[in-house]
Structures are given as C-alpha cells and as structure tokens.
C-alpha cells in the first residue's frame, strides 16, 4: 500500500515550472539586476506568458474564502 513517490521528469515538468518560475525566494534591491518576472508558462498554448490577470480569468475556483491564496 505504501506507494513510493518518484520524480519522473516528464510527469513533473508542470510541477517544476509551477515552483521554479512562481515560487522561490525573490529579493529586490540594488544588488539584484533581474528576476524573471513571469507567473507561469502556458504549456498547452505554447510560448504564451500568463499575466496575473489572465490567471484570475481562468481561475474559476471552486474553493473560495480562506482556502484561496491571496494574490
């Protein structure tokens, strides 16, 4: 019953992008010259970059209230 969770790269490309592009420490200030300013790549639509507004539009979230991350 104990499933071993393995990271298959193909399966988790979404997971990688969801974290690497969207999370992780962001620092700002004089020292930093650039932080990629992108929320997520639309894999299905090829090369379209999503803005926060677009995410909002698509969200149609069944989970509401305190369950939703503030943006």
């Amino acid at each position, binding site marked *: 019953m104990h499933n071993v969770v393995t990271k298959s790269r193909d399966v988790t490309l979404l997971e*990688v992008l*969801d974290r690497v592009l*969207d999370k992780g*420490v962001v620092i700002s200030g004089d020292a*930093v010259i650039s932080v990629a300013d992108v929320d997520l790549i639309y894999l299905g639509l090829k090369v379209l970059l999503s803005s926060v507004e677009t995410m909002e539009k698509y969200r149609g979230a069944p989970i509401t209230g305190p369950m939703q*991350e503030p943006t």
Partner: protein
Amino acid sequence: MTENQLVYLYCVTNKEPTLKEAESLVEGLYFIHHKDLYAVAGKVEESEFGEEGLKKNMADLEWVKANANTHEKIIEQVMANADVIPFKFGTLFNTDDSLRAMLEEYSEEFKTILRKLENKQEWGVKIYCDTDKLKESVINNESKILKIEGEIKSSPPGKAFFLEKKKTELLAQEVNRKINEYSQESFQLLEELSFEARINKLLPKEVTEREDDMVLNSAFLVGKNEVGDFINMVDTLKMHYENNGFFIDCTGPWPPYNFCGLSKQKVRNA
C-alpha cells in the same frame, strides 16, 4: 570574469556544498562563501540572461523548459547534502561582489530560514476532479437527488419540467459542496502532519493539460521523520476519494520553494 557575463544565483545553504554532480549539469558552477553562508551560483552570458535576452528567451518554451529543469536539478543536487534556500528562476547579479553584498544584507534572515528548514522537506499535493464522475456518484448516493428523481417520475409533464430544473441546480450545488469538502478535508488532514502548509493558485487546464479540473494546489513542509505518516495519509485519501472522481497527485521531496518567504519589510518593490 569577462564583461559580458552575469552571476546567476541558484540557492543559499549553510554547509559547504559539494558541486561535483551538479557541475555536469551546467558549466561554470561555483559557490561564494560569506559569513557561514554559501551561495551556489553560475556564470551565464549576458546575451542570454540579461534583461533583453531573458525577455526574449522566456517566450521560448523549449529554452524555459531546459533552463527551469537545470535550475531545479542543481538545487536538488545541493539539497542532497544540505538544507537549501531555493531562489526564483532568473535571480541575477552583475558581479560576485554584488551577490556577496546581498548575502551580507540578508545573512541573519537566511540563517533564520535555514534553522526553520532543518530536518524538513517540502511535499506537493495537487488534487484534480473529474466533475462528470463526481456527478454520477452524487446522483447515485445523495438522498436529496434520489428523492427529487422519484418525484419527477410521478409528476405530470409540467411539474416534472420544473423539478428537472431544480434537480440540475441541486446537483451542481452538491458537486461544488463535495469538491470543497473533499479538498478542504484533505488539506486539513495533511496540514496536521506538517509544520507549515500553503495553498497556491489553481492552474487552468491549458497549463495542466489534463481533462479534469485542479481543485487543490497545495504544499507542505513535513518533518523528515513524519514523511512516512504523510504519505500514508495521502494513500488513505486516495482510497477514500479516487472512486468519486478525484485524483490526488503527491510529489516530493522538493526544495522548499514555498517555505522560504522573507519578512515583508525586507522585500522592497516586491
């Protein structure tokens, strides 16, 4: 360093990193040591990672895929032997000195975060729902729906029409209620086994490329000793819910991308 190179920051750790394995992933990987902290960085070309180059390349899906994977793999290699603070993709500095200045500015904060992360791992749980399958299960099991179906059968056509409409509404309500109930319950049960938990933005189908809808996107900071319990709980949830149209996708351990937030006053312009 030549003039047209930049410093790309992957992660910060408090233990001297072993870069042997990670060096095979990317050229020019090294670390900068400053005040008990080690920043794992790489030299990159300004033409590729400078503001203009990056803007252009972020529109190239293959480039993004390859580089995001490299970013992740390098951090994972460092994570194999140490606790890490992972940085967001594309964190760049002009020189080693400017990276060192950043380490100086944030050193206490980084140390606090690293203390918090000790002996813990990030795990991700995404829950998807096949609404048609859930509907079926609701139709067959909910007394309210069964009752109204009985009434429809014994009613004249006019009344049956309105009852049918009412049934559709009830069904939609019930499906939404179930989605909320299941995802909240799953989140709470897993949260109880974690030090910290986060709920993230739901991703649209265009991104997930799945037929079913994402109904929960969450991340948990789990103690290394509790990982077994955590995965057992995920398995329990799968057994309970997967017959009703839910699919639970659990992955990890991840670098703690979701649990390294800097205190608010430090994040300027963010």
